[in-house]
């Protein structure tokens, strides 16, 4: 198994998406400056949020309204990573026994006002069991 950020919980509520998990295959040096990194799939745009890392535990959150600032045409995806500036660990859920998480672990969508209407933001697992956000107008 490659080093990655193993997701344990995702909490989409109250205008935020909070994620909790453990670094896998790499110890989290709390002296370093860990960030939650969102990479927009259709461009090079990136968003960074402070992440609390202690031993292998991490926790971070994204205010959903931040995503409304980006012009979404139809459906857009943002892929989630944990990074300390040196390594970039993809966030996902690889260590449990559930296959086909895309259909089983389904999270609520949240809605925020955006330039072209209402933006719906929903965390989801990709077919590779990685965690991404889907935004649609």
């Amino acid at each position, binding site marked *: 198994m490659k080093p990655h950020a193993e997701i*344990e*919980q*995702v*909490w989409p509520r109250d205008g935020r998406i909070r994620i909790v998990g453990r670094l896998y295959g790499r110890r989290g040096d709390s002296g370093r400056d860990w960030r939650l990194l969102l990479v927009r799939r259709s461009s090079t745009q990136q968003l960074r949020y402070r992440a609390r890392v202690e031993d292998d535990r991490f926790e971070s959150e994204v205010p959903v309204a931040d995503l409304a600032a980006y012009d979404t045409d139809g459906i857009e995806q943002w892929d989630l990573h944990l990074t300390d500036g040196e390594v970039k660990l993809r966030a996902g859920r690889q260590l449990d*026994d559930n296959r086909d998480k895309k*259909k*089983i672990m*389904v999270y*609520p969508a949240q809605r925020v006002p955006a330039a072209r209407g209402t933006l719906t933001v929903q965390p989801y697992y990709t077919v590779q069991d990685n965690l991404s956000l889907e935004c649609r107008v």
Partner: protein
Amino acid sequence: MRPGIKIRYLLLHAYGRGGTIRTVMNQANSLVAAGWDVELVSVLRRRDEVQFPLDCRVTVSTLVDLRERALEPARGLVARLRDRRRTRQLEVPAREIPRGEFGYRYFNRHVEDAVIAYVASLRDGVLVTTRPALNFLAARHATGGVIRVAQEHMNHGTHRVDVQRRIVECYPEFDAVAVLTERDRQDYEQLLPGTRVIRIPNAVHTLDQIPSRPESKIAVAAGRLFPQKGFDLLIPAWARLVEKYPDWQLRIYGSGEKKAELRALIEEHHLYNHVFLMGHTDRLDDELAKASFYVLSSRFEGLPMVMIEAMSHALPVVAFDCPTGPADVLTHGVDGLLVPAQDTDALADAMGRLMADQELRAEMGVAALMTSASYGPGSVHPRWEALFTELHETRHRSGAAKGLHV
């Protein structure tokens, strides 16, 4: 081979995935292995393949094929006329099936006529009909000499009034009426004085299962996502436990029409990290082995077989004491915990008791495994063989006696 006794099971849809179908296939597999000649007759056919393991010596036939290609327009005038009649008859409501039969929507004049023609053609062997609608048609029309056995897979109290009335009228025609639980046996005996009512529980397909692990923090429930199964009661019950037991998961296996409502309930209680709608699985045995207890939240049952299967994996059970089944199988405090039906607080308390105590889960799990042994194919299926043999001998004797008097 046991010459002269052919056993025919009449099922509404042998190609479906329901509990009745699974149970009948288990019976058929055991009987055919013991040398009986067994046929499954499916009233309808909507799929190409049967969905459960079935011995290749069991023959399967269909009365009305509803697969798409079977409905393609026919060539030739006669065939087209026959098609037109069939299309018309498919829209005319059935005459002899009460509206309260839960399978009423699958019946129409065409289906009904096909069943009547089939059962009326039988002259020998045994016909086992497996739901009220089919029992009613067999009672009235299977009069050509075949021995008739009616199976009831649901408890009597579950049936609507019109179905209950027809049961009293029709079931005395049967050579035997087979029910699943002791409570049902008593109810039917009272309703049908003079009719032979026999209790034979359904069997699990095997007792040779991988034991579960009591240290696991997974609870499992399974069934169609449908109000009967009470998952809408189970989800709020789990919400009461999630703070105290945040590292536990509840996995609900099954598919069905209430999926969106249940998903909404999970979101409402913020349980999306703890309660999962797993969908249908072909490998429920493997999934049961991963859990450390089973939950049955049904509003009603006949005899809940997945619960007994779970017990054969040494899983203790938390169950509503609903009609009927859980109280027939479980001994409260020994192999599981029975709580008042539809009482979600009591359900949560009982689940909490098991979640708090690994040793209790292990102990009750062993007791559950022992209970499940009496539902193994080896204990149950000989009772069917005995019943069929006895009915055949009784008929044969009385037939011979009649012959002497001529």
